[in-house]
């Protein structure tokens, strides 16, 4: 995983979504904790994206590519 840029826009979207979901419960934080919180959220998102990246081929194959059997039927 070289970073978010591997996943581009979906990565940004995932981060923003996570931020909005998490935000209400994080209202108690102060400035010194901001760095920790950024790491916790970013680390989670990055690992999530890494997992997606790892299984990307299988997901694309499963949902978006025509299987040889289908082509024959058509």
């Amino acid at each position, binding site marked *: 995983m070289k970073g978010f840029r591997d996943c581009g826009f979906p990565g940004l979207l995932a981060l923003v979504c996570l931020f909005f979901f998490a935000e209400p419960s994080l209202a*108690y*934080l*102060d400035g010194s*904790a901001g*760095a920790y919180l950024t790491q916790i959220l970013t*680390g989670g998102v990055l690992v999530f994206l*890494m997992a997606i990246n790892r299984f990307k081929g299988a997901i694309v194959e499963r949902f978006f590519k025509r299987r040889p059997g289908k082509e024959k039927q058509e």
Partner: protein
Amino acid sequence: MDPLTTAVRDSASFKDPSGFVFSRDGEIFRYVAPIYREHFELASGSGLQEHLIRSRLLIEHEDVTGIANEPGAFKTLKLRRLPFVSYPYEWCFSELKDAALLTLQIQKIAMEYGASLKDCSAFNVQFLNGKPILIDTLSFEKYEEEPWVAYRQFCEQFLAPLALMSYRDIRLGKLLEANIEGIPVDLAAALLPARAAWNVGLFTHLRLHSYFQARSGSAEGVTRAKLARKNLMAILDNLESTIRSLKYETKKSTWSDYKDERSYGASSLQHKKQVVDQLIGRLSPRMVWDIGANTGEFACPIAEKGIHTVALDFDPVCVEIDYVSNVRNRAVPLLPLCVDIASPSPSLGWAHRERKSLAERGPADVALALALIHHLAITRNVPLLHIAEFFAKIADALIVEFVPPDDGQVKRLLSTKKGSWHEYGEPQFLEAFDRYFVLERREQIMESGRLLTLFRKRK
């Protein structure tokens, strides 16, 4: 209480209770406090220190505990002396970028050995023979699966200035001089242009980081939080790719094309290079400062002889070109720095002693001031006597190129100059420098009215 009795403690080394740097009989040592024992034994016993020193990522040290331990110390380490200490606010874009990448590389290696950097101060990185190197042996602590304690410091001391230099203006590196603890992430986020938001790394580590920092309340819950190793590794990878993605496309500045726009011919240049080379050979210096070095045309050949050379120029574009073309990927002892000699780096930090002024880091054995004096005297209105006085503080010998008033460059300066300036001419120049220096040699540059002079400081 300071346990030292015979040694002089480094004025910048007071923040970390784990130890400090001191000098004794002209040599540099590090005092390691007993409270740092566990972490020091981890870093040395695990092979981390050896790995980093072998890879030239960490400054070498020799354990002299058995022969010259300081009272109360757990260990006393003798350190390699650096020829010159530079500061992040003097570095160009690529120097800061290389220092940032070094820090991340060290953090990743440290994690393999069960350790982690406990601070990420850019001041802990220095340049030795053209390469960045970590100088703080006591920066490591035992790694726990929790958020990286130095993350914020990394963002403020490396990422924020690099982002601003890349996205806004390379001159914003000087913001580090006003913010020696780093550029606050909220300030960086405010100064970055909107298009920087499309860089997801910058969005996360600066904008989001800044947003979270602005929240109020107790930090208790988060400081107890855990962060898995793979999550931290992902963050480090992301920081690295973000830093690597930041580029500075060299743009033309007033001085970056000076080499192609000089007012004298190739034979004059050749003669000038020969005379400078002869003078350097005669003086056999260990440390040379080239003041107004531009892109390092004269500093680089000196460094290639193995002489430690600091190339100072106020134009960050020139310094960037010098570093990228002459230093990076080459093991030459050349250190290009962004310093305006008319306003040199001051003493900064706690009690004005934490970061030394340029003059306090001298004197150099030899300073070069080639085609510089007329800029200081005419453009910056500094009297020749003041120039001579300051140069006597920063160098034991001087090689000065004096550009006469009828030279095209001086005429150009005078044609755009409004108001008054101090008297400028060869007699005034020689008289002013005679007050502090002895003139040892003067030679007119071939096919030019320019004068090359060698001065030695009066005893």
